[in-house]
């Protein structure tokens, strides 16, 4: 990057470090922090939408739909989220390819599962084997986002369902007394009021989501954990920048990154909670549900 970096063997001390930290691979490492942030920013609204759908389904008057909604939000409590991640990444991939097989190759007669293989016709491969590298990367990332959204959507469904039940019953009764239909009371009265009850839970969920992002590594994405292991491992003199095993320092850097991220979120969430609880008949940010507020005491 710098002009004096052409011959690293002659460098020493800080200049060596400045060259070392600006190599192409390090740039990819810095970009992967962006990947994490992009994942967070896409996943959060999608998961919230999933959660809203789940909570609505859990309240439905049509029993099978209600069971579906309740089952969706209940299952993540019983099963480790990492198992879901590992499951959905393969399951979604195979599901998509199976659907494409049905559409693109209708006269495909062989079974899809042959022994230990999952076989579909070439046109149904997703992404196509002929497509460029970036398509593969984007597809992998999209699968990861969808997986995260499904898992965290279930958590969000749980939180939102609780929040909907926390809206005082009298509010709904008043709406009914005004002649609102079930649907109107839900959208005009309950939904606007439930957010303040949901916020502590959703804030908590946001923190968990942040702390789940390193699991991207297990889904085969080249994220910060991947690069920290890659760059930190000891490099012999064959490499341009030889160094001993520095993974400890790389992981320390990741630790600091996550501590900053959670700390900043905590402060913002606490502010948001105080603002939203203005004029609300809740105990406010400080008392009963004070997960975010409790963090402030640190």
């Amino acid at each position: 990057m710098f002009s004096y970096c052409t011959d690293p063997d002659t460098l020493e001390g800080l200049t060596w470090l400045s060259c070392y930290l600006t190599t192409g691979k390090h740039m990819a490492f810095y970009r992967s922090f962006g990947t994490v942030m992009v994942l967070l920013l896409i996943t959060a609204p999608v998961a919230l939408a999933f959660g809203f759908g789940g909570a609505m389904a859990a309240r439905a008057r049509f029993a099978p739909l209600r069971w579906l909604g309740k089952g969706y939000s209940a299952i993540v409590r019983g099963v480790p989220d990492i198992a879901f991640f590992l499951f959905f990444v393969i399951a979604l991939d195979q599901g998509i390819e199976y659907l494409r097989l049905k559409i693109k190759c209708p006269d495909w007669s062989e079974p899809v599962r042959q022994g230990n293989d999952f076989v579909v016709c070439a046109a149904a491969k997703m992404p196509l084997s002929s497509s460029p590298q970036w398509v593969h990367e984007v597809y992998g990332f999209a699968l990861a986002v969808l997986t995260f959204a499904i898992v965290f959507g279930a958590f969000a469904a749980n939180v939102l369902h609780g929040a909907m039940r926390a809206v005082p019953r009298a509010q709904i009764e008043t709406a009914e007394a005004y002649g609102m239909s079930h649907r109107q009371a839900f959208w005009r009265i309950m939904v606007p009021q439930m957010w303040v009850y949901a916020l502590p839970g959703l804030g908590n969920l946001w923190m968990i989501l942040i702390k789940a992002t390193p699991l991207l590594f297990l889904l085969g994405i080249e994220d910060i954990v991947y690069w920290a292991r890659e760059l930190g491992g000891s490099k012999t003199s064959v490499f341009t920048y030889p160094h001993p095993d520095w993974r400890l320092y790389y992981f320390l850097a990741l630790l600091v990154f996550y501590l900053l991220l959670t700390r900043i979120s905590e402060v913002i969430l606490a502010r948001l909670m105080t603002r939203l609880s203005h004029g609300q008949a809740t105990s406010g940010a400080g008392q009963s549900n004070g997960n975010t507020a409790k963090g402030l005491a640190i």
Partner: protein
Amino acid sequence: MTCFETLTAYGLRAIGIGERLLPKRDFTLCEHVTLIGSGMLWNLYFGVLALFFGFFLANAIAMAKANRRWWLRKPAEWFIFIFRGSPLFIQFFLFYEIFVLLPKMGWDINLGFTQITVETRWLTRAWLGALIVLILNTTAYSAEIFHGALKSIPRGDIEAADAYGLTGWKRYRRIVWPTMLRLAWPAYTNEAIFMFHATTLVFFSGFPAWRQKGDALYYASYFADKTFNPFIAYPILAGYFILLTLAVISIYGLINKRLNRHLPQEARRKLRLRPNVIR
């Protein structure tokens, strides 16, 4: 192989008893269930021990955080902040690297009458190294829960204790601690559930599964990788974990009942099984 033979061959495979080689092809449902079930032994081992040691440590850290003296309070606050603010996954990696970098030889500690050799190589093994990380992690989360409960003990309870002339250790032992535990218990149940879930991360985060002795998720992903079919191994794993979660809930529910036994029936706090305090 019949199912019974599979059970005897692989039932304790996760702790190194039985057949050495894992099945390679033509996996039967029985093999799935047996091997993943034997992996659950590790999840139980990590979860139970981490919760046990973490409980006592968390009490101490929570007391330290509530202390007025800054040199007790600050370290406790930082400890909780670091372990709650960063992902467990990163903590595993970080500690593994620290353990690897520790000098390979042991230290000889002379206790006068006997000589103890502290060997650091065990720390890079999952059974000890990962257990230490899990203990520290659950300590931080539980300490935060206990500290929150400590802060919400009704003032009247403390005043009543004062009025009875209870002070110091006696007041803590008889009034403060039981009340704190009672208030914290629903949230602590959640922590316990998620602790068991967190044990599945161990073998995916630096710590190697020595001689393929892994936990339930390790074997589940082994099967899923070999067969390229996630629809059998992972649901079996899910089944085991749902059973484990139900067991945790009922055991903690019994303790909750005992903690609240002096209260009138309606005032008893039901265990709220809504993930309000999930990690």
